[in-house]
């Protein structure tokens, strides 16, 4: 009896020595792939159950491994596996527990999932309200530990979800969560000693706040720097929380950056990209960089940091794209 692969509710036999990719393709399934040599990562799949052979995860980011992602073209399993394409959606109902303004236009939305929900702080979910409006938001806390989900939502003028939250949503309303997804989260697979740079604009702070707290809880030993970029000082939030954390932890530095401002005791004035690049840790080859928020900042800083010597696999980015609907 050969190895069997479960995919999309059907079971497929593999021939001896056949990869998961080749087997599924032989059964005429539409699985994305390109190089078939374990380098391009087009054929990334996710194991729901079953052991993943080590060869199928060589050089994947630790975050990918943690989500049981593997390269289907390099995966010749010894035992049966249940697999899916990555990020296959799981819907969980959730109820609004509370809403609290964090500054003049960012609300902290606290949701209680009504079913089991696990994720890594820093991943994101799609939130679907009763009117069918769907938007993606990053998770700012550790729902596995705290039994609720914290989202930071910036009110956008005439935004559909914004208008609904501002004018209609109340405690007890039911929403649907889809996900989680994303690779922007803390892992300690490579030890606890490396420097971490977290840089985000606006509500890009949400995933970074989750990652920061996770790293501190895990007993991270390397330096951690958090740069929060804002247009005006009034756009910053969680200032007290972050200052308190930096006082409690010698290894953590909080650096608010305000584009339209003057340097002072509290924040640095200027473009967050310039401020981050000027202060990158000396140990560039080991530094992990997490970037979240405005797409222009994320993409530009990603490139600048890479060119300055950071390893591509150590840069985790999550660009917040505006909704088109």
């Amino acid at each position, binding site marked *: 009896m050969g190895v069997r692969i479960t995919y999309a509710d059907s079971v497929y036999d593999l021939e001896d020595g056949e990869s998961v990719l080749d087997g599924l393709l032989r059964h005429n399934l539409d699985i994305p792939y*390109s*190089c*078939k*040599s*374990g*380098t*391009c*990562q*087009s054929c990334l799949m996710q194991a729901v159950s079953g052991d993943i052979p080590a060869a199928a995860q*060589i*050089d994947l980011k630790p975050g990918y491994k943690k989500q049981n992602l593997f390269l289907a073209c390099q995966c010749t399993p010894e035992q049966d596996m249940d697999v899916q394409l990555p990020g296959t959606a799981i819907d969980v109902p959730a109820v609004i527990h509370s809403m609290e303004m964090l500054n003049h236009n960012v609300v902290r939305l606290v949701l209680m999932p009504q079913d089991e929900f696990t994720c890594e702080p820093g991943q994101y979910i799609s939130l679907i309200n009763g009117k069918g409006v769907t938007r993606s938001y990053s998770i700012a806390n550790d729902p596995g530990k705290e039994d609720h989900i914290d989202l930071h939502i910036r009110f956008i003028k005439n935004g559909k979800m914004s208008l609904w939250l501002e004018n209609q949503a109340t405690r007890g309303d039911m929403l649907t969560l889809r996900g989680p997804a994303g690779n922007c989260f803390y892992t300690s697979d490579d030890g606890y000693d490396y420097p971490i740079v977290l840089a985000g604009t606006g509500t890009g702070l949400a995933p970074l706040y989750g990652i920061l707290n996770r790293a501190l809880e895990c007993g991270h030993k390397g330096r951690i720097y958090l740069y929060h970029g804002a247009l005006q000082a009034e756009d910053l939030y969680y200032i007290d929380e972050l200052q308190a954390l930096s006082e409690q932890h010698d290894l953590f530095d909080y650096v608010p950056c305000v584009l339209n401002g003057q340097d002072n005791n509290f924040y640095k004035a200027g473009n967050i990209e310039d401020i981050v690049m000027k202060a990158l840790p000396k140990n560039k080859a080991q530094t992990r960089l997490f970037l979240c928020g405005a*797409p222009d900042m994320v*993409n*530009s800083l*990603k*490139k600048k940091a*890479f*060119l300055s010597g950071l*390893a*591509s696999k150590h*840069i985790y980015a999550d660009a917040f794209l505006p909704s088109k609907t």
Partner: protein
Amino acid sequence: MSSLYERLGGANAVNTAVDIFYRKMLGDDRVSHFFDNTDMDGQIAKQKAFLTMAFGGPNNYTGKDLREGHKHLVEKGLNDTHVDIVIEHLGGTLKELGVPDADITEVASIANSVRDDVLNR
């Protein structure tokens, strides 16, 4: 006698070389404009597939793939000079990694062998 790909170090060599190579390409004004900077991860995956091929490793590229994949770049002006620059940076990357000249020449000649497909000629 081991193959070129084995001598260079196989997939590990590709993974080590890709950052050095891609950094050289992105940092070179003569070619950096061919890289759309919104999808660095996707581009790195493509560079890895290219390096695997150039290192003599397993690959499934056909002339048709290479033609299709570079068509939009040829329309933007991709020409022999740019292919020369790619091969120059490929050599520079391998030199940094301590690869002997004879192997670098072999890699360059593999890369050169797809020149006409890449340039859609």
